[in-house]
């Protein structure tokens, strides 16, 4: 129980060990299906059996899993005349046994977690990345804030006050913990369900709401539909609607960081559905070839609007796809704030120190509808939604853990919630009452410098509006 106190980099080391072994093609010693791998110093090097009932480290499981499915033991034993095929790309051992790598999996890649559903640390769990009170309380507060903001803004859309909204219910930990594990110099390329990350970095409630209302105080100058946040100041690249386009962009950005030798990385988010896009292949493949420091975080929430993952891919989720590109990958419980925090910390360290991409698949069910244009009860059962909403809520889970540490109380909870609600209501009221962007902003930023035709057109438009004021809505500000 007190193991959380011991600072450890066990997780990082395991992943590092895994990646080292994988990369250099060391098969280690294969004797009767046992696999030897290096563990953290001080612990006797363990022989991991092929059937591993009580091995509790992700790395070893993953390692054995991989070899199990591709049956390398057999290959080594049946090596054909000790000859290798010398082929572009590297030497490959021959075999006389015709063996197909199985397309299906007997055992799925397990999911890394730190907390149980009850919010308590897993008994006999391995060491995890420590989180102090200040960090934990900020993580928790931001998760609550996100939940409340989503609730209010969804309602606002329903009331017709904004045109569109997307909630992050069920995925609060996935995005906020990820952001918590990064530094402010790491560049985030979101898909569209990561306002949690932006919230963590200091984007205010007023700024969020202004964007949704598209008023003159919106940092985006009212150019984009709601939830398409962007802030250079917070190193959060503006949300772009086409799916997965941010993945090759992330590889490109990471390449630039690499050329500049910066101590930071790029983090690109994608959903389970987005992994079907061609850009997913291009982005991951390129990042691996260019050895770019980028973390690909796939928020597998089970649904791409109404398409379940069973219709999206037939692989063991997304985590196994990383290996196909030579990218170290991990599957993590996206509802577990500590697990996500630890995994991203480790991934970041790997990405920057080893200058390579990393793939993290976070499993966290999408509790809300895809967006305000969707009614998910049409394609999934109410029971399923309810189960994940109540029994598996990441915010409640983390709250329990924070409370267990004596860092949070009922009083704090009440104060926080009422404070956020008040701020939010005020923000919405202010945003709604704020003027829309002035006419000038229709014409700026098309190019670096305004082209002559737009300058002329703006002049003409102003003249027309002035002359026929009654034909134009009153919220077309000419200032």
């Amino acid at each position: 129980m007190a193991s959380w106190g011991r600072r450890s980099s066990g997780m990082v080391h395991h992943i590092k060990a895994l990646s080292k072994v994988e990369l250099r093609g060391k098969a280690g010693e294969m004797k009767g299906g046992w696999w030897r791998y290096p563990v953290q110093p001080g612990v006797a090097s363990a022989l991991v059996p092929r059937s591993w009932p009580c091995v509790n480290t992700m790395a070893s499981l993953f390692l054995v899993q991989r070899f199990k499915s591709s049956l390398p033991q057999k290959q080594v034993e049946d090596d054909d005349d000790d000859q290798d095929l010398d082929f572009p790309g590297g030497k490959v051992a021959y075999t006389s046994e015709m063996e197909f790598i199985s397309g299906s999996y007997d055992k799925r890649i397990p999911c890394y977690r730190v907390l149980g559903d009850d919010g308590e640390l897993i008994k006999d769990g391995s060491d995890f990345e420590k989180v102090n009170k200040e960090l934990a309380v900020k993580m928790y507060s931001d998760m609550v804030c996100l939940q409340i903001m989503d609730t209010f803004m969804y309602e606002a859309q329903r009331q017709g006050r904004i045109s569109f909204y997307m909630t992050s219910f069920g995925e609060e930990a996935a995005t906020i913990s990820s952001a918590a594990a990064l530094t402010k110099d790491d560049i985030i390329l979101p898909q569209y369900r990561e306002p949690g990350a932006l919230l963590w970095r200091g984007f205010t409630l007023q700024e969020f709401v202004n964007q949704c209302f598209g008023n003159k105080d919106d940092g985006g100058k009212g150019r984009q539909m709601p939830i398409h946040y962007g802030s250079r100041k917070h190193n959060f690249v503006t949300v772009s609607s086409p799916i997965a386009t941010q993945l090759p962009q992330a590889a490109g950005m990471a390449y630039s960081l690499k050329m500049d030798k910066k101590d930071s990385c790029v983090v690109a988010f994608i959903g389970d559905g987005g992994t079907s896009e061609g850009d997913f292949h291009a982005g991951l493949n390129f990042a691996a070839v260019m050895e770019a420091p980028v973390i690909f975080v796939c928020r597998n929430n089970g649904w791409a609007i109404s398409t379940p993952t069973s219709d999206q891919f037939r692989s063991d989720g997304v985590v196994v796809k990383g290996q196909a590109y030579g990218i170290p990958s991990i599957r993590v419980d996206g509802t577990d704030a500590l697990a996500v925090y630890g995994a991203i910390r480790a991934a970041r360290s790997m990405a920057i120190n080893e200058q390579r991409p990393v793939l993290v698949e976070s499993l966290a069910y999408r509790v809300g509808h895809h967006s305000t244009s969707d009614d998910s009860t049409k394609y999934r059962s109410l029971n399923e939604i309810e189960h994940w909403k109540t029994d598996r809520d990441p915010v409640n889970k983390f709250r329990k853990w924070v409370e267990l540490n004596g860092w949070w109380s009922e009083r704090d909870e009440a104060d926080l919630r009422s404070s956020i609600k008040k701020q939010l209501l005020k923000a919405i009221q202010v945003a709604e009452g704020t003027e829309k962007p002035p006419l000038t902003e229709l014409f700026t930023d098309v190019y670096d410098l305004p082209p002559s035709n737009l300058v002329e057109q703006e002049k003409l438009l102003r003249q027309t509006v002035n002359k026929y004021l009654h034909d134009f809505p009153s919220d077309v500000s000419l200032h």
Partner: protein
Amino acid sequence: MLAIARQRMLGQSFKKILPAVSVLRSYSSAAKQITVREALNSALDEEMSADPKVFLMGEEVGEYQGAYKITKGLLEKYGPERVLDTPITEAGFTGIGVGAAYYGLKPVVEFMTFNFSMQAIDHIINSAAKSNYMSAGQISVPIVFRGPNGAAAGVGAQHSQCYAAWYASCPGLKVLSPYNSEDARGLLKAAIRDPDPVVFLENELLYGESFPVSDEVLDSSFCLPIGKAKIEREGKDATITAFSKMVGYALKVSEMLEKDGIYAEVINLRSIRPLDRATINASVRKTNRLITVEEGFPQHGVGAEICASVVEESFSYLDAPVERIAGADVPMPYAANLERMAVPQVEDIVRAAKRACYRSVPLAATA
């Protein structure tokens, strides 16, 4: 095999262009001649030397020295960090280039031909062109997309389309199309230095063409303004607008028309977006007749936009309807005789000019 066929075709069109090259009156007195290929190569070299943020990406640009040898010698000079051979995914490397540009580098992305850019067009339009606007000026994209555009010779439908009109319709992009070596150098340098995304449409058949260039053009600081057309040849009876390879045709046409007493003014557009409406309109107000020439498909083409601009601004100056010469409204056929019928020929332009000048001509088949 294709290369041999191509050379033969090149020989044919070379014959057509050569006389046009001899029309020196609009060029500054020049001693040196360089090919368009050399012009592009030297422009890339100088810009990469001047700005360490400039780098090249594309299929075969490095080790192979460029599919059309435009990037010859650059890998050797600048190394693999600045000349990147990419895997075959236009969508992929275009996205990567855009991402690098978001961060502040200045990529020059080569498409083996702009026909393949369609596989990346989402990144060009939605990730590059619109980003500055959508991000309210926070994300600028100083990227250049370059490569051969339009019909080559004997390469069929999927290798011959002209994309000038497609890209030029999108706000946020700048679209340039050089004709001769001076254009190639000046416009490519301008494109690389420009903070906005630029689509740079070259022409495969012009790569090997030599044009005279002055010392000013050869200077490393040489740059042409974006958005300014060039009057290649002055005239008083009709205005012919063209870009890229068709400029050569237009110059040949103007020579032929002179024999019939028609003095045509030839405008090399250079910049498709922004279109130099001022120069075009000023010319039409002088000559009162307009013939637009392009290789691309007629509907919603560059000529259509020029026509609209002239009708809007200089309607009362027109003495005859605008004549639009464009490629045939069919996917480009392969067979040499059919291909010849599918692209504008000098004779088509001559007939159109004569029609505009009320000369009686046998009715040509019109689209």
